[in-house]
């Protein structure tokens, strides 16, 4: 058995006297999709920020296994190395696509940005790669020069996915990627994510309040409440046979269609 890709131990973050996240530990293996669910304010997004080293924790540590199999502490990583990691080996799909995209820049420029950031200097190749990725996320390559401002919400999310996956990352963080989209668009997006995750063998940490999304995408899930993880397990196990009263409440409050 290989060692985990990402390991967190005892992560904690306080905002003033309030604990947003307390004593969270987890292991994530390559090709595994982990869902973090919980109600609003339960510390899901804070945890994601901590794992992605966008926020610094008050306690705990995060280790990551690099491509050369070396496991390193992310919190002691230099700024330059950390940023390089984030734009090559990692991806971050934001809830609000306008935050994850560069809105004044064309779709092609958005997809090409990471390539140019790691040194691609051939316009034709960058453009060909961008076209290829637009097609893979089901955006008409003919719209490569259009601004994402002219795109629908679903297209923006797909563009964000293409922009993040273009450098072939191994680990992608997703923060509520499907919220705010109507159900049919949601279904197509989930389908796309599931296909890409399987094809590319991505490890994914996905934060969602939508249990259906967790059931569809994830292998394992963590239930959070008040900044603490109250239940973890295989997705179908947690959803079909919840142990904690809070999880039972969460599962039973899903409206059956």
């Amino acid at each position, binding site marked *: 058995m290989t060692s985990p890709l990402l390991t967190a131990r005892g992560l904690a973050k306080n905002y003033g006297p309030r604990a947003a996240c307390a004593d969270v530990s987890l292991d994530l293996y390559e090709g595994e999709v982990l869902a973090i669910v919980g109600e609003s304010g339960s510390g899901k997004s804070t945890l994601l920020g901590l794992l992605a080293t966008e926020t610094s924790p008050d306690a705990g540590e995060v280790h990551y296994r690099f491509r050369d199999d070396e496991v390193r502490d992310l919190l002691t990583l230099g700024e330059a190395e950390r940023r390089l990691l984030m734009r090559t080996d990692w991806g971050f799909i934001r809830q609000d696509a306008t935050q994850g995209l560069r809105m004044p820049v064309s779709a*092609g420029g958005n997809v090409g940005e990471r390539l140019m950031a790691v040194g691609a200097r051939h316009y034709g190749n960058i453009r060909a790669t961008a076209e290829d990725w637009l097609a893979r996320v089901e955006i008409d390559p003919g719209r490569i020069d259009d601004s994402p401002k002219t795109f629908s919400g679903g297209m923006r999310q797909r563009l964000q996915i293409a922009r993040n996956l273009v450098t072939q990352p191994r680990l992608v963080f997703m923060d509520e990627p499907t919220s705010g989209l109507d159900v049919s668009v949601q279904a197509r997006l989930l389908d796309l994510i599931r296909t890409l995750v399987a094809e590319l063998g991505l490890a994914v940490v996905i934060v969602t309040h939508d249990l259906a999304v967790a059931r569809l995408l994830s292998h394992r899930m963590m239930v959070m409440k008040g900044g603490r993880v109250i239940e973890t397990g295989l997705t179908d196990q947690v959803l079909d046979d919840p142990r904690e009263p809070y999880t039972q409440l969460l599962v039973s409050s899903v409206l059956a269609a």
Partner: protein
Amino acid sequence: MNEHAQATGYNFAYLDEQTKRMIRRAILKGIAIPGYQVPFASREMPMPYGWGTGGVQVTAAILGPDDVLKVIDQGSDDTTNAVSIRKFFARTAGVATTTKTVEATVIQTRHRVPETALRSDQVLVYQVPIPEPLRYLEPRETETRKLHALGEYGLMHVKLYEDIARHGHVATTYAYPVEVAGRYVMDPSPVPKFDNPKIDDCEALQLFGAGREKRIYAVPPHTKVRSLDFEDHPFRVQTFKDPCALCAAEGVYLDEVVLDDRGGRMFVCSDTDYCEERREAGHRGHLAGDDPLSPVGRGRVAEGDRVREEHKSDSASPSPRPSPHRGEGEEALP
């Protein structure tokens, strides 16, 4: 009172000695780290921001009593900005001034690098409106500083990518970003990209002062300055179809001069000193008469009127960016 008489009550070159020391320290740091923007405590100058307050402070800090000063505005020695700054230093420092590039030891410039090659005993001082090349791509100053510190310049290429995607070629024609000494990306101030190759491996020291933005940066002599580009869209300078109408010079940057209200126009050297020198040496363009300095036909086009129509307001206003040069020929595309 003679307007060129030296003003009394001011320190040499207007600024006090402590301020000049502070600016010199910033300049030295800038020279030590080519292309790096050094913050400095920019002073209020007796002119509005955008008229060259940064350049004037740098000039004041490096000027000595034996220096000969030349000031150019859009290549011309006799537009408002150039005349005023020259007069300012003639009065506050009593230094000799000139319009000839070869005679000058300090040249303050706005929008152009002289056509005549500079020498190692000369200093070129640029007036810079916006020193940050990443400004319109990344609005946060904290973030742009971080990008410079970490050498993350992918964003600059995103801009060039967008140009090519929209226009089929890199449409940035002035303030074209350059990489200095293989490290910092720098805005060469709004000189036309035609002048970028002159900044590379230049004999003279080049200093850049931005008064409003409070930044000084420098390119030491013989520094490698590379214009950013793509492998399949290499950097190119503007080319012009016809030579200068007055001095027949080719391979120089030309300005368009409107001659009448019926569409008549001519293209002449933007560098007035260069143009005059060539005419004195006997070169004749197709609109030049027999008198070395007088274009024929429509009476003498006074040097002071040789401002292009679309630049008339520009040369007398603090607009930080020049309007597009209509006289530019199309760039050859691959």
